[in-house]
């Protein structure tokens, strides 16, 4: 408990906390992110209607404009979509799905990338070469294309039924496989520098094995660059998922994400129901924008050179 107190006290006096307080874009985006997180976690409680309970839907209410537009009903604040689902509820669930896929894929790509980066950086030699060759090959394909190909191919390879259940997992894996290279290269870079540093040599002298040194000494020093990449790449992951869902791949139709909603809205764009695509779009932009704002601040705050 004492070290907890110590770290909290150390955090409050630290430059990080001071600069967070001073830069409006940072604490505003932090608050917005917390709001988003809250909405996503409490979606079932906040949503006025459960969009997946078909019984509750009433097709007559389909395609109602938002309440403040002429013809809108107060019951459906943001109007309804093609299947009569209340936009507010379906957007909350959509947000939850988008955030889930974004965070899950980022964590997966972080774990894969950091481990491979550490191993490549520390072991060097052939292993380093193989991992970095793979990274180069993958880097020549942009993340979205890689995710698209994996998701698309899995759709053709797996029989339809199997694909339905697994598609969520496939999307997460697809996006993760597309983004692990960032972590691997950065972590390898930092590891290469840290492993030659004298504090590692000092520990090698007492006979400690490479693996133990890696985790006791090198790992803590790569956390801050990894943290910065993770924050920035959540935004990218959410964007990638939304793109896949928009293209009809991505998450299954039964549990739509914001991308899916935007696609459904886009199909009826020309018949005038603009809100079905615009409102989820704005929600998505708000999410990605605040993640990027917070990530930018974090990168500058943690970057020793800029201090």
């Amino acid at each position: 408990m004492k070290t907890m107190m110590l770290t909290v006290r150390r955090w409050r006096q630290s430059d990080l906390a001071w600069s967070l307080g001073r830069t409006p874009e940072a604490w505003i985006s932090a608050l917005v992110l917390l709001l988003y997180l809250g909405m996503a976690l409490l979606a079932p409680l906040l949503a006025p209607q459960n969009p997946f309970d078909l019984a509750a839907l009433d097709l007559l209410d389909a395609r109602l404009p938002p309440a403040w537009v002429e013809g809108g009903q107060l019951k459906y604040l943001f109007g309804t979509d093609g299947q009569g689902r209340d936009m507010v509820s379906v957007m909350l669930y959509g947000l939850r799905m988008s955030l889930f896929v974004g965070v899950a894929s980022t964590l997966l790509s972080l774990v894969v990338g950091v481990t491979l980066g550490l191993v490549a950086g520390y072991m060097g030699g052939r292993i380093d070469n193989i991992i970095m060759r793979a990274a180069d090959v993958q880097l020549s394909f942009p993340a979205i294309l890689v995710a698209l190909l994996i998701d698309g191919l899995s759709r053709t390879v797996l029989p339809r039924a199997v694909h339905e259940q697994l598609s969520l997992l496939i999307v997460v894996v697809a996006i993760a496989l597309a983004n692990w290279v960032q972590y691997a290269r950065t972590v390898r870079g930092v590891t290469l520098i840290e492993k030659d540093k004298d504090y590692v040599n000092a520990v090698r002298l007492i006979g400690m094995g490479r693996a133990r040194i890696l985790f006791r000494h090198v790992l803590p020093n790569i956390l801050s660059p990894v943290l910065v990449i993770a924050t920035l790449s959540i935004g990218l992951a959410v964007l990638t998922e939304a793109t896949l869902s928009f293209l009809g791949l991505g998450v299954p139709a039964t549990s739509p994400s914001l991308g899916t909603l935007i696609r459904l809205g886009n199909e009826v764009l020309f018949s005038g129901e603009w809100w079905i695509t615009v409102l989820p779009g704005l929600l998505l932009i708000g999410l990605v924008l605040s993640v990027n704002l917070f990530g930018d601040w974090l990168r500058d705050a943690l970057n020793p050179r800029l201090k």
Partner: protein
Amino acid sequence: MSMPYLSVKNLSREFKAQGRTVRAVDNVSFDIPVGTTFSLVGESGCGKTTLARVIAGLDKPSAGSMLFGAPLDGRVHRTQMIFQDPYASLNPRWRVGDAIAEPITFQNLRLRTDVKQRVEDLLARVGLSAADTAKFPHEFSGGQRQRVSIARALAGEPSFLVCDEPTSALDVSVQAQILNLLKRLEKEEGLTSLFISHNLAVVRFVSSMIGVMYLGRLVEVAPTAELFAAPRHPYTQLLLEAIPRIGQGRRAVSLPAGELPSPLAPPPGCTFHPRCPAAMDICRREAPALRTLDNGVLVACHAVSSGGQPVRFMPGAAHPASSFPLS
């Protein structure tokens, strides 16, 4: 002469660089008597740091051998090292106390309960306070960090200490404190140590025996007083001549031109011949072996006769023969 604690025989270390093999350390042999401090001095790229890392066990030699004898009073042979850059020798994310405790706990040198006390004693011994255990490295100055490094080295209860330019990154007044501390601790602990530096004055203060290195080769090995009194090898003379003299105003600095050749393409024969005023034909063809002179000094130079008269520093006609300040 007491049994040497460390005996290095024909040690070499090669690297592959741009398709060529570079001999960073080229067939080096020397002994370090137990309880004494042997120094390796030379300019950058002469291989002294590579040699130190090989001897400390951080790097494997390409050829040759190094034998450690029995340390004093039956202690176990253990090596510790003190590094040049105070900012890179401590893990920024570890508290200082934990860094010092690690060698103790990992090698079970103390009971778990005594470790905290041992760390505090060591901190006091190097001139810091027990309260510093909870601090992080960024809360200390360069000099204080070197003290922490020394405390950590002592925590490992070494019998052999390798110091790689421990004070080059420090200011003069801080350097004096660290050099005094090192000298005192080595005496008290009865350590045998290898000291690396490019500064001849520092080397004179700490060591009893000095080896001068040039482009991977040992060119001269002599007891400290002997080396300063009568340097045999022309390169040793060049190094001594280049040290600025405090308080004697301007001297007619007579230095041969030319710069350190790159280790990638060492000149043939004796690698110093392009810059050597006493270079003869043989020097361009054949690398001189390290010969033992009558008085035990080792020299690798064709111009030095076995009687060991130092090659008078006769730089080209343009420069007047410099008188050597043998004060």
